[in-house]
């Protein structure tokens, strides 16, 4: 079987899973929908491996294969078809997406047990994986945009999965609206490119990009900026990041899959895929790098202050994607995508661990109420700590090799990029600090009552309530389910977390400078036409960057240890000393309030105005009322003629006859 057939299979399995579960959910008892979904993704993973193997069989020059299923629009010399592009980049993304999705599906089989919407959840999840795979396998802009939109829709469905919760529904709408902004930008960018280049297929566009556009050509820069807007909306970068923390309203596996490993990486994939365009328009690429850097600093600072466990991890995601965006914007494609892969591993692992802790806390997500789970949940503690080490970039973990490679690239490019590189190291310091802030606050210290209960062998149960607002909610509808699952007790959760922990430890060895270069070599055919191909830093420079990064992470972990474990009151004292800074950080730099004032309030006012004045007064009153009023007045004249008096009618007849006769008399004379 050829690589492209494997590509179609990769798409077919999750789609089939969605259809089977959504149509036949009544017939599937118990946890069967979960197992069907998981096996569908596993088969997709196997098909990705098949595609990989077949692709490696081809020679290096022939590793970009396009296959079109059927053409559905063909006018003039414009053709749009259902085509997929199987090349190293898409196979890499497919492997990451399907692999991590498989593990998260496995985790969800246990985590979502007892929830009445079990089948619905897995149908949505499979649909999401299908759309993400469609996005990465797209061979032309049309399929890319379709996949992009589907991913946004799936995200909305999954964020507001527990739709009885007002906050969840609001978060889903917020995510969808911001994603739509990105969708629109993407479509306009596609139009601009179609207008100038004349084709929407990716490979021909890339080939003609150099000839059609001059460097920093106005249209191309505009198109690339619009592509960036789309990427930022999907990947939650400044200023379109506000949806991601709120999206933590969804179930924890959803946060793991969508908002850590896959959907938010779609923006990074987009920039990497469109690299010929970005290299021809360096102005846009620079914008991307600057925004990525600003985002990673912003998110790092906010993660220092928020107390909701999932939201800390969410801001960490925003921050790490800032690294990836920065990486692919400065043409460090291999490094950026490698970080994408390792980040998927350890971020999903962190979310899974957080899910386990939240299960032990009976749904409470506030870190202020957690502590001392070390003895009660040893497995969770170990895997969570591995994830945190990888996030912090501790030496020899996966994150160490990937994140610091990006920063080494930055410093190597020199000039303004070196500044970004230094800021990246500052961000790395913050990252390590807040990662271990989480670890120490949750697992160290005195055990809280729930931990004591768990040590006694009994998972805590509390009143069901909304974790964000704390108000009680009724679960009579069946969701969220009444059961809480802990990793120690459920083997699917344990298995998934274990695999990810192993990958977080050893995954880095795929790209050790000077020793192995698997990722770079594999991705080379895609990026061979990059003009920055030969500006990679030397092995020595990379090793230096890695060492600096490692030192920074160790220092930050030590500082966190001192603040949280050695002298437990330090954090509180700092907070009291700098109340306004703390408030600024906890309120996420007041971005939500800014958008509320800038966009939401005016639109709502205009909507109210529209309803009051335009609809009620103008349309109903003037247009509708006016039309009927005119008819009424007109007909009242006609009614006045019908008096009922026979003689009046006779008079009218006579007058009419006289008038007619007069008319004809005059005309004939």
């Amino acid at each position, binding site marked *: 079987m050829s690589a492209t057939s494997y590509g179609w299979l990769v798409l077919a399995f999750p789609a089939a899973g969605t259809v089977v579960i959504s149509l036949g959910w009544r017939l599937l008892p118990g946890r069967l929908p979960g197992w069907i979904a998981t096996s569908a993704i596993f088969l997709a993973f196997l098909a990705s491996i098949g595609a990989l193997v077949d692709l490696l069989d081809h020679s290096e020059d022939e590793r970009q294969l396009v296959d079109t299923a059927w053409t559905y629009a063909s006018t003039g010399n414009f053709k749009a078809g259902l085509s997929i592009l199987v090349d190293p980049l898409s196979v890499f993304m497919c492997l990451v997406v399907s692999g991590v999705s498989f593990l998260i599906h496995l985790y969800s089989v246990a985590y979502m047990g007892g929830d009445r919407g079990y089948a619905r959840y897995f149908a949505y999840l499979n649909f999401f994986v299908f759309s993400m795979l469609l996005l990465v396998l797209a061979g032309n802009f049309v399929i890319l945009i379709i996949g992009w939109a589907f991913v946004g829709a799936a995200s909305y469905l999954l964020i507001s999965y527990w739709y009885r919760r007002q906050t969840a529904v609001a978060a889903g709408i917020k995510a969808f609206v911001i994603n739509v902004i990105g969708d629109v930008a993407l479509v306009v960018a596609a139009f601009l490119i179609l207008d100038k280049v004349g084709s929407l297929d990716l490979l021909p566009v890339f080939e003609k990009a150099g000839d059609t556009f001059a460097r920093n050509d106005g249209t191309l820069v505009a198109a690339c900026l619009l592509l960036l807007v789309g990427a930022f909306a999907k990947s939650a970068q400044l200023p379109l990041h506000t949806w991601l923390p709120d999206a933590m309203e969804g179930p924890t596996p959803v946060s793991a899959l969508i908002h850590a490993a896959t959907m938010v990486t779609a923006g990074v994939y987009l920039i990497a895929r469109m690299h010929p365009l970005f290299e021809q328009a360096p102005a846009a690429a620079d914008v991307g790098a600057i925004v990525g850097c600003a985002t990673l600093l912003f998110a790092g600072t906010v993660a220092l202050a928020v107390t909701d466990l999932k939201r800390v991890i969410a801001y960490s995601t925003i921050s790490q994607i800032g690294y990836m965006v920065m990486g692919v914007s400065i043409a460090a494609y291999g490094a950026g995508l490698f970080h994408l892969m390792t980040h998927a591993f350890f971020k999903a692992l962190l979310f899974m661990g957080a899910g386990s802790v939240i299960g032990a806390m009976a749904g409470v997500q506030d870190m202020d109420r957690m502590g001392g789970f070390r003895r009660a949940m040893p497995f969770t503690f170990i895997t969570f700590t591995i994830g945190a080490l990888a996030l912090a970039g501790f030496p020899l973990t996966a994150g160490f090799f990937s994140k610091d490679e990006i920063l080494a690239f930055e410093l190597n490019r020199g000039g303004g990029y070196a500044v970004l590189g230094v800021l990246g190291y500052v961000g790395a310091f913050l990252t390590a600090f807040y990662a271990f802030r989480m670890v120490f606050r949750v697992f160290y210290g005195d055990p809280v009552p729930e931990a004591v209960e768990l040590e006694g062998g009994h998972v805590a149960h509390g009143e069901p309530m909304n974790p964000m607002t704390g108000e009680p909610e009724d679960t009579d509808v069946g969701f969220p389910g009444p059961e809480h699952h802990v990793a120690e007790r459920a083997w699917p959760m344990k298995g998934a977390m274990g695999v990810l922990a192993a990958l977080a430890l050893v995954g880095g060895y795929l790209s050790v400078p000077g020793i192995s270069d698997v990722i770079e070599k594999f991705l080379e055919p895609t990026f061979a036409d990059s003009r920055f191909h030969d500006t990679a830093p030397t092995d020595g420079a990379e090793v230096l960057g890695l060492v600096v990064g490692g030192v920074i992470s160790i220092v930050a972990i030590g500082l966190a240890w001192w603040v949280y474990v050695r002298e437990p009151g330090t954090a509180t004292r700092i907070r009291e000393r700098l109340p306004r800074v703390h408030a600024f950080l906890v309120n996420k730099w007041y971005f939500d309030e800014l958008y509320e004032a800038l966009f939401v309030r005016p639109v709502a006012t205009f909507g109210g105005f529209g309803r009051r004045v335009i609809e009620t007064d103008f349309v109903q009153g003037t247009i509708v009322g006016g039309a009927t009023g005119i008819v009424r007045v007109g007909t009242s004249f006609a009614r006045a003629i019908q008096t009922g008096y026979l003689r009046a009618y006779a008079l009218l007849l006579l007058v009419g006859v006289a008038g007619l006769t007069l008319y004809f*008399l005059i005309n004939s004379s």
Partner: protein
Amino acid sequence: MWFEDVLFFVAAIGALAGALGVVLLQNPFYSVLSLVCHLLGLAVLFLMLNAEFLAAAQVVVYAGAVMVLYVFVVAYIGGSDEPLRPEGGGLALLGPLFAIALAVELCIAFIASGLQALDSNGPEVGSRFGSPGNIGELLLTDFLVPFEAASFLLLVAAVGAVVLARRRRGLEDEGAGTMRSRHEAPPTETMDVRV
């Protein structure tokens, strides 16, 4: 011949007088009689136009049958005298006005007409022109369909008249009760029908 002209004027004045009498006389009985006079004048005019059969039919059918029917009904109902100018009747002023206007227009049309034949006495016709024989022949050949249709119409009218005016046994009191029972009462209140 001067004889014809005099006869014409006499007949015409008679017809006009009769017409005016119909309109102006208060008592409906007198109006009926006035119409009879008018019809006789018209019959003379028909004769002068060589329409013998028609003149005879006018006298026998119209004046003889229809007017007799009228007399019967007037006697049955008993017409009451009514003022010629009803209260608040602008119609009584406007009606004659427009009628006079119509008459003037028609006269202008006739006098200023371009038809030369109007200024003559008509072509020479034979003695059988307008005779019963000729009319009968036409009725049964060229104008058969109108003839049959008219006879059918007569049948319908007869049946209709009988149905309209018959006395319904036992329904008279209810029929009377549902309608106005007083002569002079106003018919109904004005209803304000909202559209």
